[in-house]
């Protein structure tokens, strides 16, 4: 049976991980490669590396980093951030990334998803969506890490992304992100039930129970989190044993 996936997310700036990492006495916590290897050994199923560098020079550093990750990490990893055109995708996949994640650039120019799917196959393209549940009850999509509201809405955009050839949807609820109060399970369940591609849940993980809920209630195929893993609040192995005990199929 296919296992539910647990995915730590690492923010990278100028080649080093941004958020402090405190889960082990670990000297190279700032090194995304060492950190990825550590997570892989702990039982993470995949990794997501987000490049939050602004400069062009930083982009080159990130590509070099992707090459080092590919050389040393033996589980799949997705890279995102700063992907505007097909040549960015080509560069990152050639450096060894398994998938690329597009967000703002796809909202601005949805054809980018079609182009990636046609050139590299739909399994290479993750469509990341940052959305906020507004007072009018609608999930509005945001650009640039949640800073700029758009006139697109979560469900219609997710459907379009699927039709254009996205292989997965990575949905971050801005309402839940950072709250540690659990994932946006209602919206996730609707996405998962309406779409035929896998859904990665993001935003709101605080406890092991939240992960159980996101699989049981939110019908997510994978759950992504950052700080609960980076700060050792939820050890990976413990989380997976807990999920397995509660009837969730995970890779142990």
């Amino acid at each position, binding site marked *: 049976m296919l*296992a539910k996936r647990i995915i730590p997310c690492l923010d990278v700036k100028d080649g080093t991980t941004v958020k402090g990492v405190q889960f082990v006495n670990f000297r190279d916590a700032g090194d995304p490669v060492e950190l990825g290897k550590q997570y892989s050994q702990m039982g993470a199923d*995949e990794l997501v590396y987000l490049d939050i560098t602004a400069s062009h020079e930083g982009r080159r550093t990130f590509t070099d980093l992707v090459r080092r990750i590919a050389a040393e990490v*033996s*589980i799949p990893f997705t890279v995102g951030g700063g992907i505007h055109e097909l040549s960015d995708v080509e560069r990152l996949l050639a450096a060894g990334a398994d998938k690329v994640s597009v967000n703002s650039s796809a909202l601005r120019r949805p054809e980018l998803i079609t182009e990636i799917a046609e050139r590299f196959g739909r*399994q290479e393209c993750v469509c990341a969506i940052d959305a906020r549940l507004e007072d009018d009850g609608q999930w509005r999509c945001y650009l640039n890490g949640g800073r700029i509201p758009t006139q697109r809405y979560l469900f219609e955009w997710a459907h379009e992304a699927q039709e254009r050839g996205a292989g997965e949807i990575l949905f971050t609820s801005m309402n839940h992100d950072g709250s540690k109060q659990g994932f946006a399970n209602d919206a996730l369940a609707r996405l998962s*039930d309406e779409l035929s591609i896998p859904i990665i849940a993001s935003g709101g993980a605080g406890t092991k129970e939240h992960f159980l809920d996101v699989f049981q209630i939110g019908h997510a195929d994978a759950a992504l989190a950052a700080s609960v893993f980076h700060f050792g609040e939820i050890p990976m192995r413990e989380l997976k044993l807990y999920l397995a005990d509660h009837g969730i199929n995970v*890779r142990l």
Partner: protein
Amino acid sequence: MKVAIIKYNAGNIYSVYCACRRLGHDAVITDDPVVIRQADRVIFPGVGEARAAMQHLNQTGLADVIRGLRQPVLGICIGMQLLCRHSEEGDVDCLGIFDVPVVRFRSSSKEFKVPQMGWNTIEKFEKTAENDNSNRLFINLHEGDYVYYVHSFHVPICSYTIAQTDYDGFYSAALHKDNFWATQFHPEKSGPVGEQILRNFLL
């Protein structure tokens, strides 16, 4: 040992190279027929689309090179599918080493998304006679070990099947015939389990 990784218009080839390097093998990524023919082991990897890939293999002559190989060959993912007779992806005739068709997942319920993406178990390794090495890929592995899959098309269970996986029904996780082995999953992305499979192939 000389390991050749076949270079063609498919992705994810660098990851296979890295995995070989981690195991201490200095593999080369090449489309040179001479280098490929002289290698001790040949890996035919990739992520891509069947019709475009076959077109490229036919045009470059690599199709005949692969068909003529006598040393152990390992097809991975699309590489495995291209070793089959025909693929529904782009309705294209493939290399025909394994006389079976490649078909799309026809999901019977919402539970089974396409592509299948993630970790699933391999089981029912073929039990073989003492000196038959068809199950060499699974030395030191266990029924129920997890491997990483990304695919929308699959090979049904057939006489070449040496391991199977359940995704809305059983399909071929791995195939074997003569000097050709193939896995639908990605050993190069399957952590320690995948490393063991590659190690077994490179023995």
